[in-house]
């Protein structure tokens, strides 16, 4: 069947994406073992050029750029993944509930989400982070909840298409309760299109975290994270030193690789009704 073929034969772009992503995940997991220097070791001259000693040069206070990039993978990827997992947990639960539990609850949830979505996400995040501080915990919760509103919309529209099928009606006719219908009938059918969305939301959250760090409200020093590194090394560009480009390239590569993988997944999951899995 065509679907099995696609699963075994990802296109070149998806393969490249997977390789790059795996490399970064490897960095994230094994950072302490593979980085040549420590995360916060200030041992070289400021903004030294790439050399045998420091493969990508040094940053604004003399730390090895390559090591910071490797350690940065942990924070940046890790926080983005945590945010996306949280937003999906909340978003899918609320979305399925809205689709399954009746019109009244649907209206309440949907209108609340509309309200939340009308506030620009950056402003909202900045507000909360400046009120409650930028600890990792607050950061993950904030972005997780803010993103969950967007996930809610998608999960709900996917679930609504499933809820009107005959097999869900069969379950209702049997007398099944809300929990069963949501988790055993609707969810297994809603997940495949959501997988692609996970990749897309991950990219968004990832960029958002990097952006917040760039503004100084995201991940705090001395933790390495790519957004913060762009900020710290920003001034070097004025002197023709490519230091901020390295973390920026890392951000770009990650986003592109995830997107290429998501494109491939979306092409497998095209709905027979003609609507693609992406809304």
């Amino acid at each position, binding site marked *: *069947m*065509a679907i099995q*073929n696609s699963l075994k034969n990802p296109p070149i772009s998806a393969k490249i994406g997977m390789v790059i992503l795996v490399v970064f995940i490897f960095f994230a997991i094994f950072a302490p073992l593979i980085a040549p220097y420590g995360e916060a070791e200030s041992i070289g001259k400021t903004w030294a050029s790439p050399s045998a000693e420091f493969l990508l040069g040094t940053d604004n206070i003399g730390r090895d750029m390559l090591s910071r990039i490797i350690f940065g993978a942990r924070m940046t990827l890790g926080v983005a993944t945590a945010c996306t997992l949280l937003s999906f947990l909340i978003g899918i639960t609320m979305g399925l509930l809205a689709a399954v539990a009746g019109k009244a609850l649907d209206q309440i949830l949907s209108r609340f989400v509309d309200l939340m979505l009308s506030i620009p996400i950056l402003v909202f995040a900045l507000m909360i982070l400046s009120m409650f501080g930028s600890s990792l915990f607050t950061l993950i919760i904030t972005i997780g909840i803010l993103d969950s509103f967007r996930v809610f919309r998608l999960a709900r529209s996917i679930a609504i298409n499933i809820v009107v*099928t*005959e*097999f869900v*009606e*069969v379950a*209702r*006719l*049997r*007398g*099944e309760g809300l929990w069963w219908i949501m988790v055993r*009938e609707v969810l*297994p*059918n809603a997940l495949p299109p959501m997988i692609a969305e996970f990749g897309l939301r991950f990219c968004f959250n990832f960029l958002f975290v990097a952006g917040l760090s760039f503004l100084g409200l995201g991940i705090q020093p001395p933790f390495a994270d790519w957004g913060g590194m762009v900020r710290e090394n920003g001034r070097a560009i004025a002197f023709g030193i490519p230091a901020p480009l390295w973390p920026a390239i890392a951000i770009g590569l990650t986003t592109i690789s995830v997107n290429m993988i998501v494109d491939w997944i979306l092409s497998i999951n095209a709905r027979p009704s003609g609507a693609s899995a992406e809304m």
Partner: protein
Amino acid sequence: MTTPILKIQNLRIESLAGDVLVDNANLSLMPGKVLGLIGESGAGKSTIGLAAMSYARGGCKITGGQVEIDGVVIQELSAEGRAQFRGRRIAYVAQSAAASFNPAHTIMDQVCEMPVHHGVRSRIEAEAWAVEMFRTLELPDPESFGARYPHQVSGGQLQRAMAIMAISADPDIVVFDEPTTALDVTTQIEVLVLIKKLIRDYNIAALYITHDLAVVAQIADHIMVLRQGKMVELETTGNILHSPKQPYTKELVEDRQTSDVFREIILKADREVILDAAHITAHYGDFEVLKDVSITVAKGETVAIVGESGSGKTSLARVIVGLTERSSGDLTFLGQTLSPALKHRSRDDLRKVQLIYQQPDVALNPRHTVGEIIGRPIKFYFNRTADEVRERTLELLEQVGLPADYIDRKSIALSGGQKQRICIARALAAEPTLIICDEPTSALDQLVADEILKLLQKLQDELSLSYLVITHDLGIVRRIAHRTAVLLRGELVASGATGDIFKPPFHPYTEKLLQSVPELRESWLEEITAKRAD
């Protein structure tokens, strides 16, 4: 000696995964002649029909053979060349008119699109021609019909509009892909007559694709029988009907003939009444969909509810199970009143009445295995252990004639008939008293439908089940129903023993229904039209 207008030689079509969909198809069609393509689902009839336009659906590829229209091998043409042919020399009438019309454009815009695009007529000429055609095909208000949108007209009207759209650029060949399958029997006759008229008046060569032998017998000069992509037999219509050579063709002809024969089924009198629906009225919003309908079902009995689209038969089923709340009337089941709404009924009430759907594909959760599907009612209603559930599931699989190793398979890969058996097993798992079958075999091929009906009867004999069968197919009614009720626009027009309903004196609507079922004779359509004209 005229040359064939359409010639297909050694056509081979494969799916992208490598399965062969059509193997070595050969046909040649003379101008003004009709070739019927008949076969079951998956036989390759639509695939061949589309290949005649050098078109393959997504997931398929034409890998061999050639298609010649009026001597030109159209596959060798460029995309522009093919576009010149499509619509202008060869046109296509799809099965579902509703899916083929763009809901955002008026009917007139769409009917005029082809002649204007191919330069056959100017827009004004095309509109005038269209209005004439609307009149000829007896569409209501021909002058203003074109201004309507597709959703504003009925199925039969839209199908006629699609036929008009197909011939609007004066094609030489038209491929009719199951054009009347989705219509009611009474509408089907009208559309068949008009299609035949069009073919005659415009000297069109037609490929008529259908799975119904009686329908194709009315309209085709030759019939090609297809099975799994291969041609089984190609003969004149008369030869196919009266002296089929191949065993498969014989099977198809005999099976169709049996549905014409009426067998009276007698049921022992004085059976306990299990379902009593009295004076049921139901509304969808302000629209009254059921008007004072009363029906009873006794133990071990099959009651058929017959009607066309809009008759209210599905609504009646929904009222009985509680999906739709009745506005008034009483519903008693096994002596107890059933409340109007589903949520107020007890689990046991819900257990005893089971529903089987028309389309088994959507009635089964594609992410569940067969074992999970059948096992759930057992666990839910009877709270058995996992081992007991598995044992009972295997018993049920055997009872419906499915192999035991299906228990761990997902249902999606199975055929329509097998899926319907799973639905039946699922219904049986609840140990019900009454099973409501909503068009249980309409979505299945003839031979497969036969087996499902036999299975249902066997189960009724073994388990003393009662059935309420909703259908528009009088063949099914005659074969399995003890009593029948006929619905017309929400009202009960006839009710009683099947034998009595289908013997004169008839209610006028019953008579119309009976006459509309195509019979396996070539002259049937002419006879019916002549009768109607009186």
